[in-house]
Protein backbone atom coordinates (compact mmCIF):
# COMPACT_ATOMS: atom_id res chain seq x y z
CA UNK A 1 0.00 0.00 0.00
CA UNK A 2 2.92 2.33 0.65
CA UNK A 3 3.75 2.26 -3.01
CA UNK A 4 0.36 3.66 -3.90
CA UNK A 5 0.67 6.20 -6.67
CA UNK A 6 3.89 4.78 -8.05
CA UNK A 7 3.26 3.66 -11.63
CA UNK A 8 4.30 0.08 -12.12
CA UNK A 9 4.41 -1.25 -15.67
CA UNK A 10 4.02 -4.85 -14.52
CA UNK A 11 1.99 -4.98 -11.39
CA UNK A 12 2.78 -7.65 -8.91
CA UNK A 13 0.39 -10.47 -9.79
CA UNK A 14 0.02 -11.49 -6.19
CA UNK A 15 -1.34 -8.18 -5.10
CA UNK A 16 -5.07 -8.00 -4.58
CA UNK A 17 -7.34 -5.10 -3.88
CA UNK A 18 -7.61 -3.83 -0.35
CA UNK A 19 -10.43 -5.93 1.13
CA UNK A 20 -12.29 -2.97 2.57
CA UNK A 21 -12.11 -1.04 -0.65
CA UNK A 22 -13.28 -4.15 -2.49
CA UNK A 23 -16.04 -4.57 0.07
CA UNK A 24 -17.28 -1.03 -0.40
CA UNK A 25 -17.21 -1.48 -4.16
CA UNK A 26 -19.09 -4.73 -3.73
CA UNK A 27 -21.66 -2.88 -1.67
CA UNK A 28 -22.04 -0.33 -4.45
CA UNK A 29 -22.56 -3.08 -7.01
CA UNK A 30 -25.25 -4.56 -4.79
CA UNK A 31 -26.93 -1.21 -4.38
CA UNK A 32 -26.80 -0.66 -8.13
CA UNK A 33 -28.38 -4.06 -8.73
CA UNK A 34 -31.18 -3.26 -6.32
CA UNK A 35 -31.60 0.26 -7.61
CA UNK A 36 -31.91 -0.73 -11.24
CA UNK A 37 -33.38 -4.21 -11.20
CA UNK A 38 -34.84 -4.46 -7.72
CA UNK A 39 -32.88 -7.59 -6.94
CA UNK A 40 -29.44 -8.61 -5.86
CA UNK A 41 -26.86 -10.49 -7.87
CA UNK A 42 -26.77 -14.25 -7.57
CA UNK A 43 -24.78 -17.07 -9.03
CA UNK A 44 -26.19 -20.52 -8.50
CA UNK A 45 -29.40 -19.64 -10.34
CA UNK A 46 -27.59 -19.53 -13.65
CA UNK A 47 -26.44 -23.19 -13.71
CA UNK A 48 -29.90 -24.14 -12.50
CA UNK A 49 -31.62 -22.37 -15.37
CA UNK A 50 -29.12 -23.51 -17.95
CA UNK A 51 -29.50 -27.09 -16.75
CA UNK A 52 -33.28 -26.78 -16.95
CA UNK A 53 -32.89 -25.38 -20.45
CA UNK A 54 -30.64 -28.23 -21.54
CA UNK A 55 -33.00 -30.81 -20.07
CA UNK A 56 -35.88 -29.15 -21.90
CA UNK A 57 -33.98 -29.47 -25.18
CA UNK A 58 -32.75 -33.02 -24.66
CA UNK A 59 -35.84 -34.46 -23.00
CA UNK A 60 -38.71 -32.00 -23.34
CA UNK A 61 -41.28 -34.44 -21.96
CA UNK A 62 -39.23 -35.09 -18.88
CA UNK A 63 -38.82 -31.38 -18.28
CA UNK A 64 -42.55 -30.82 -18.63
CA UNK A 65 -43.39 -33.54 -16.15
CA UNK A 66 -40.86 -32.43 -13.57
CA UNK A 67 -42.32 -29.86 -11.21
CA UNK A 68 -38.85 -28.48 -10.80
CA UNK A 69 -37.66 -27.97 -14.37
CA UNK A 70 -41.00 -26.86 -15.75
CA UNK A 71 -41.02 -23.92 -13.38
CA UNK A 72 -37.96 -22.54 -15.14
CA UNK A 73 -38.72 -23.80 -18.62
CA UNK A 74 -42.15 -22.18 -18.58
CA UNK A 75 -41.14 -18.97 -16.84
CA UNK A 76 -41.92 -15.73 -18.62
CA UNK A 77 -38.78 -15.52 -20.70
CA UNK A 78 -37.79 -19.18 -20.69
CA UNK A 79 -34.76 -20.63 -18.96
CA UNK A 80 -32.19 -18.96 -21.19
CA UNK A 81 -33.19 -15.33 -21.25
CA UNK A 82 -32.83 -14.79 -17.56
CA UNK A 83 -31.37 -11.96 -15.52
CA UNK A 84 -29.02 -14.34 -13.73
CA UNK A 85 -27.63 -15.85 -16.91
CA UNK A 86 -26.67 -12.44 -18.23
CA UNK A 87 -25.29 -11.49 -14.87
CA UNK A 88 -23.05 -14.59 -14.77
CA UNK A 89 -21.90 -13.84 -18.29
CA UNK A 90 -20.89 -10.47 -16.90
CA UNK A 91 -19.07 -12.09 -13.98
CA UNK A 92 -17.00 -14.12 -16.42
CA UNK A 93 -16.16 -11.03 -18.46
CA UNK A 94 -15.46 -8.94 -15.38
CA UNK A 95 -13.24 -11.59 -13.85
CA UNK A 96 -11.33 -11.87 -17.08
CA UNK A 97 -10.80 -8.11 -17.32
CA UNK A 98 -9.58 -7.93 -13.75
CA UNK A 99 -7.29 -10.92 -14.27
CA UNK A 100 -5.92 -9.43 -17.47
CA UNK A 101 -5.27 -6.02 -15.89
CA UNK A 102 -3.33 -7.48 -13.00
CA UNK A 103 -1.54 -10.19 -14.95
CA UNK A 104 -3.20 -13.18 -13.39
CA UNK A 105 -4.33 -14.89 -16.56
CA UNK A 106 -2.80 -18.34 -16.49
CA UNK A 107 -4.12 -21.80 -17.09
CA UNK A 108 -3.33 -23.83 -14.05
CA UNK A 109 -4.69 -26.08 -11.38
CA UNK A 110 -4.17 -24.45 -8.05
CA UNK A 111 -3.61 -27.01 -5.36
CA UNK A 112 -1.70 -27.68 -2.20
CA UNK A 113 1.63 -29.43 -2.85
CA UNK A 114 0.45 -32.26 -0.63
CA UNK A 115 -2.18 -33.41 -3.08
CA UNK A 116 -2.11 -34.19 -6.80
CA UNK A 117 -3.92 -32.03 -9.29
CA UNK A 118 -6.13 -34.97 -10.19
CA UNK A 119 -7.27 -35.13 -6.60
CA UNK A 120 -7.86 -31.38 -6.51
CA UNK A 121 -9.96 -31.58 -9.66
CA UNK A 122 -11.98 -34.47 -8.27
CA UNK A 123 -12.75 -32.60 -5.07
CA UNK A 124 -13.54 -29.42 -6.98
CA UNK A 125 -16.09 -31.35 -9.01
CA UNK A 126 -17.56 -32.87 -5.86
CA UNK A 127 -17.65 -29.48 -4.21
CA UNK A 128 -19.44 -28.01 -7.21
CA UNK A 129 -22.08 -30.71 -7.14
CA UNK A 130 -22.63 -30.36 -3.41
CA UNK A 131 -22.67 -26.59 -3.49
CA UNK A 132 -25.21 -26.38 -6.26
CA UNK A 133 -27.34 -29.05 -4.64
CA UNK A 134 -27.40 -27.15 -1.38
CA UNK A 135 -27.95 -23.85 -3.15
CA UNK A 136 -30.92 -25.23 -5.04
CA UNK A 137 -32.34 -26.45 -1.78
CA UNK A 138 -31.78 -23.21 0.13
CA UNK A 139 -32.78 -21.12 -2.91
CA UNK A 140 -29.55 -19.25 -3.08
CA UNK A 141 -25.83 -19.48 -2.58
CA UNK A 142 -23.32 -17.22 -0.93
CA UNK A 143 -24.03 -14.50 -3.48
CA UNK A 144 -27.72 -14.86 -4.03
CA UNK A 145 -28.93 -15.78 -0.58
CA UNK A 146 -26.29 -14.61 1.85
CA UNK A 147 -24.92 -11.44 0.26
CA UNK A 148 -28.05 -10.17 -1.48
CA UNK A 149 -30.14 -11.33 1.44
CA UNK A 150 -27.94 -9.37 3.82
CA UNK A 151 -28.47 -6.20 1.83
CA UNK A 152 -32.24 -6.41 2.23
CA UNK A 153 -32.23 -7.95 5.73
CA UNK A 154 -33.81 -11.21 4.56
CA UNK A 155 -33.99 -13.66 7.45
CA UNK A 156 -33.49 -16.51 4.99
CA UNK A 157 -30.27 -14.90 3.77
CA UNK A 158 -28.80 -14.62 7.25
CA UNK A 159 -29.83 -18.15 8.16
CA UNK A 160 -28.31 -19.51 4.97
CA UNK A 161 -25.13 -17.55 5.53
CA UNK A 162 -24.72 -18.84 9.06
CA UNK A 163 -25.43 -22.38 7.87
CA UNK A 164 -22.87 -22.12 5.06
CA UNK A 165 -20.09 -20.81 7.24
CA UNK A 166 -21.12 -23.00 10.16
CA UNK A 167 -21.17 -26.05 7.90
CA UNK A 168 -17.82 -25.17 6.41
CA UNK A 169 -16.21 -24.82 9.85
CA UNK A 170 -17.86 -28.04 10.91
CA UNK A 171 -16.42 -30.03 8.03
CA UNK A 172 -13.15 -28.09 7.68
CA UNK A 173 -11.28 -30.40 10.00
CA UNK A 174 -12.00 -33.50 7.91
CA UNK A 175 -10.73 -31.95 4.71
CA UNK A 176 -7.71 -30.11 6.08
CA UNK A 177 -5.38 -32.38 4.11
CA UNK A 178 -6.70 -30.82 0.93
CA UNK A 179 -5.59 -27.35 1.91
CA UNK A 180 -2.91 -27.19 4.59
Amino acid at each position, binding site marked *: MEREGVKMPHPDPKKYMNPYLAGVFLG*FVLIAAF*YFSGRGPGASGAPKRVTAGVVAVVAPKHADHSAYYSKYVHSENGPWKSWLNFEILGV*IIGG*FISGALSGRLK*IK*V*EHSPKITSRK*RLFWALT*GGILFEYGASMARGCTSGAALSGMAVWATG*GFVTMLAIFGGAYLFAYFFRKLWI
Partner: protein
Amino acid sequence: MGPLVPQGIISPEWDFIIALVIGIGFGFILEGAGFSSSRNLVGLFYGYDFVVLRVFFTGGATAAAGILLMDYFGWIDIGQLYVQPTYWGAAIVGGLIMGLGFVTGGFCPGTSFAAASIGKMDALMFVVGTFLGAFLFGETYPLIQNFVNSGYEGGIKIYDSLGMSRGLFTFLLILVAVGMFYFVPVIEKKVRKPEY
Protein backbone atom coordinates in the same frame (compact mmCIF):
# COMPACT_ATOMS: atom_id res chain seq x y z
CA MET B 1 -38.03 6.39 -8.02
CA GLY B 2 -36.19 3.12 -7.90
CA PRO B 3 -36.01 0.22 -8.38
CA LEU B 4 -36.13 1.47 -11.91
CA VAL B 5 -37.03 -1.60 -13.93
CA PRO B 6 -39.80 -3.01 -11.70
CA GLN B 7 -41.34 0.45 -11.42
CA GLY B 8 -41.43 0.69 -15.19
CA ILE B 9 -39.16 3.73 -15.33
CA ILE B 10 -36.72 1.82 -17.51
CA SER B 11 -38.16 -0.65 -19.98
CA PRO B 12 -37.67 -4.34 -19.07
CA GLU B 13 -35.53 -4.94 -22.14
CA TRP B 14 -32.74 -3.00 -20.48
CA ASP B 15 -32.82 -5.39 -17.56
CA PHE B 16 -30.51 -7.85 -19.30
CA ILE B 17 -27.98 -5.21 -20.24
CA ILE B 18 -28.06 -3.96 -16.67
CA ALA B 19 -27.57 -7.55 -15.52
CA LEU B 20 -24.52 -7.84 -17.73
CA VAL B 21 -23.00 -4.62 -16.44
CA ILE B 22 -23.75 -5.53 -12.81
CA GLY B 23 -22.18 -8.92 -13.49
CA ILE B 24 -19.05 -7.33 -14.92
CA GLY B 25 -18.70 -5.19 -11.82
CA PHE B 26 -19.36 -8.16 -9.58
CA GLY B 27 -16.86 -10.37 -11.40
CA PHE B 28 -14.24 -7.64 -11.44
CA ILE B 29 -14.49 -7.19 -7.69
CA LEU B 30 -14.55 -10.92 -6.95
CA GLU B 31 -11.41 -11.45 -9.00
CA GLY B 32 -9.71 -8.28 -7.84
CA ALA B 33 -10.30 -9.04 -4.18
CA GLY B 34 -8.64 -12.42 -4.58
CA PHE B 35 -11.71 -14.61 -4.61
CA SER B 36 -10.40 -16.29 -7.74
CA SER B 37 -8.04 -18.34 -5.63
CA SER B 38 -9.53 -21.19 -3.64
CA ARG B 39 -6.60 -20.86 -1.29
CA ASN B 40 -7.76 -17.41 -0.23
CA LEU B 41 -11.33 -18.54 0.09
CA VAL B 42 -10.85 -21.58 2.29
CA GLY B 43 -8.30 -19.68 4.34
CA LEU B 44 -11.29 -18.46 6.26
CA PHE B 45 -11.99 -21.96 7.56
CA TYR B 46 -8.41 -22.68 8.56
CA GLY B 47 -7.79 -19.27 10.03
CA TYR B 48 -4.99 -18.01 7.82
CA ASP B 49 -6.81 -15.62 5.51
CA PHE B 50 -9.97 -13.75 6.30
CA VAL B 51 -10.26 -11.79 3.08
CA VAL B 52 -13.63 -13.40 2.35
CA LEU B 53 -15.10 -12.34 5.62
CA ARG B 54 -13.77 -8.81 5.28
CA VAL B 55 -15.02 -8.24 1.77
CA PHE B 56 -18.25 -10.03 2.43
CA PHE B 57 -19.21 -8.15 5.55
CA THR B 58 -18.02 -4.79 4.31
CA GLY B 59 -20.04 -5.33 1.16
CA GLY B 60 -23.15 -6.51 2.94
CA ALA B 61 -23.05 -3.75 5.54
CA THR B 62 -22.38 -1.07 2.91
CA ALA B 63 -25.27 -2.31 0.81
CA ALA B 64 -27.66 -2.53 3.75
CA ALA B 65 -26.76 0.94 4.99
CA GLY B 66 -26.81 2.32 1.46
CA ILE B 67 -30.21 0.89 0.62
CA LEU B 68 -31.62 2.17 3.88
CA LEU B 69 -30.23 5.63 3.18
CA MET B 70 -31.47 5.59 -0.39
CA ASP B 71 -34.90 4.63 0.85
CA TYR B 72 -34.79 7.51 3.28
CA PHE B 73 -33.71 9.97 0.64
CA GLY B 74 -36.35 8.75 -1.74
CA TRP B 75 -34.25 7.05 -4.39
CA ILE B 76 -35.39 3.53 -3.83
CA ASP B 77 -38.47 1.91 -2.38
CA ILE B 78 -37.50 -0.94 -0.07
CA GLY B 79 -40.95 -2.48 -0.33
CA GLN B 80 -40.41 -3.09 -4.04
CA LEU B 81 -37.17 -5.04 -3.66
CA TYR B 82 -37.05 -8.78 -4.05
CA VAL B 83 -36.58 -10.41 -0.69
CA GLN B 84 -35.42 -13.97 -0.46
CA PRO B 85 -38.27 -16.03 1.01
CA THR B 86 -37.37 -17.93 4.15
CA TYR B 87 -37.77 -21.69 4.32
CA TRP B 88 -36.24 -22.69 7.61
CA GLY B 89 -35.42 -26.35 7.07
CA ALA B 90 -34.21 -25.96 3.53
CA ALA B 91 -32.10 -22.92 4.38
CA ILE B 92 -30.29 -24.68 7.22
CA VAL B 93 -29.78 -28.06 5.58
CA GLY B 94 -29.01 -26.50 2.22
CA GLY B 95 -26.54 -24.19 3.94
CA LEU B 96 -24.78 -27.09 5.64
CA ILE B 97 -24.49 -28.93 2.32
CA MET B 98 -23.08 -25.77 0.79
CA GLY B 99 -20.59 -25.53 3.64
CA LEU B 100 -19.45 -29.06 2.85
CA GLY B 101 -19.20 -28.12 -0.81
CA PHE B 102 -17.20 -25.04 0.12
CA VAL B 103 -14.45 -26.87 2.01
CA THR B 104 -14.19 -29.65 -0.56
CA GLY B 105 -14.48 -27.55 -3.70
CA GLY B 106 -12.83 -24.41 -2.44
CA PHE B 107 -15.18 -22.09 -4.27
CA CYS B 108 -18.71 -20.90 -4.25
CA PRO B 109 -20.58 -20.63 -7.54
CA GLY B 110 -20.01 -16.91 -8.09
CA THR B 111 -16.30 -17.05 -7.37
CA SER B 112 -15.86 -20.21 -9.43
CA PHE B 113 -17.11 -18.41 -12.53
CA ALA B 114 -14.73 -15.51 -11.92
CA ALA B 115 -11.84 -17.89 -11.26
CA ALA B 116 -12.59 -20.07 -14.27
CA SER B 117 -12.44 -16.97 -16.46
CA ILE B 118 -8.79 -16.41 -15.59
CA GLY B 119 -7.85 -19.97 -16.35
CA LYS B 120 -8.16 -21.83 -13.06
CA MET B 121 -8.87 -25.40 -14.09
CA ASP B 122 -10.06 -26.38 -10.62
CA ALA B 123 -12.64 -23.61 -10.82
CA LEU B 124 -13.75 -24.86 -14.22
CA MET B 125 -14.21 -28.29 -12.70
CA PHE B 126 -16.27 -26.72 -9.94
CA VAL B 127 -18.44 -25.02 -12.57
CA VAL B 128 -19.01 -28.36 -14.28
CA GLY B 129 -19.94 -29.68 -10.87
CA THR B 130 -22.57 -26.97 -10.40
CA PHE B 131 -24.33 -28.07 -13.58
CA LEU B 132 -24.26 -31.68 -12.43
CA GLY B 133 -25.49 -30.58 -9.02
CA ALA B 134 -28.40 -28.71 -10.55
CA PHE B 135 -29.26 -31.78 -12.63
CA LEU B 136 -29.00 -34.03 -9.60
CA PHE B 137 -31.28 -31.72 -7.64
CA GLY B 138 -33.80 -31.65 -10.47
CA GLU B 139 -33.87 -35.43 -10.60
CA THR B 140 -34.18 -35.93 -6.86
CA TYR B 141 -36.59 -33.05 -6.41
CA PRO B 142 -39.73 -35.24 -6.12
CA LEU B 143 -38.12 -37.11 -3.22
CA ILE B 144 -37.25 -34.05 -1.18
CA GLN B 145 -39.99 -31.76 -2.42
CA ASN B 146 -41.89 -31.78 0.85
CA PHE B 147 -38.85 -30.99 2.87
CA VAL B 148 -37.64 -28.24 0.54
CA ASN B 149 -40.97 -26.45 0.75
CA SER B 150 -41.49 -26.86 4.47
CA GLY B 151 -41.16 -24.13 7.05
CA TYR B 152 -42.20 -21.40 4.65
CA GLU B 153 -42.29 -17.97 6.22
CA GLY B 154 -42.45 -15.67 3.22
CA GLY B 155 -40.12 -12.74 2.69
CA ILE B 156 -39.57 -12.00 6.37
CA LYS B 157 -36.91 -9.62 7.54
CA ILE B 158 -34.24 -10.36 10.08
CA TYR B 159 -34.96 -7.29 12.22
CA ASP B 160 -38.57 -8.43 12.57
CA SER B 161 -37.43 -11.92 13.46
CA LEU B 162 -35.13 -10.53 16.12
CA GLY B 163 -37.62 -7.91 17.22
CA MET B 164 -35.47 -4.82 16.79
CA SER B 165 -35.65 -1.79 14.57
CA ARG B 166 -34.19 -1.83 11.10
CA GLY B 167 -31.79 0.99 11.87
CA LEU B 168 -30.48 -0.67 15.00
CA PHE B 169 -29.88 -3.94 13.20
CA THR B 170 -28.01 -2.20 10.41
CA PHE B 171 -25.94 -0.37 12.99
CA LEU B 172 -25.05 -3.66 14.63
CA LEU B 173 -24.15 -5.10 11.23
CA ILE B 174 -21.78 -2.20 10.63
CA LEU B 175 -20.39 -2.64 14.14
CA VAL B 176 -19.62 -6.29 13.39
CA ALA B 177 -17.94 -5.33 10.13
CA VAL B 178 -15.86 -2.67 11.88
CA GLY B 179 -15.03 -5.01 14.73
CA MET B 180 -13.62 -7.35 12.15
CA PHE B 181 -11.04 -4.72 11.11
CA TYR B 182 -9.43 -5.13 14.50
CA PHE B 183 -10.21 -8.67 15.52
CA VAL B 184 -9.33 -10.61 12.39
CA PRO B 185 -5.65 -9.57 12.05
CA VAL B 186 -5.08 -10.96 15.54
CA ILE B 187 -6.04 -14.45 14.38
CA GLU B 188 -4.29 -14.12 11.07
CA LYS B 189 -1.02 -13.38 12.84
CA LYS B 190 -1.26 -16.55 14.86
CA VAL B 191 -1.84 -18.88 11.93
CA ARG B 192 0.85 -19.45 9.33
CA LYS B 193 -0.34 -19.11 5.78
CA PRO B 194 0.71 -22.17 3.77
CA GLU B 195 2.66 -21.03 0.73
CA TYR B 196 2.13 -22.71 -2.59
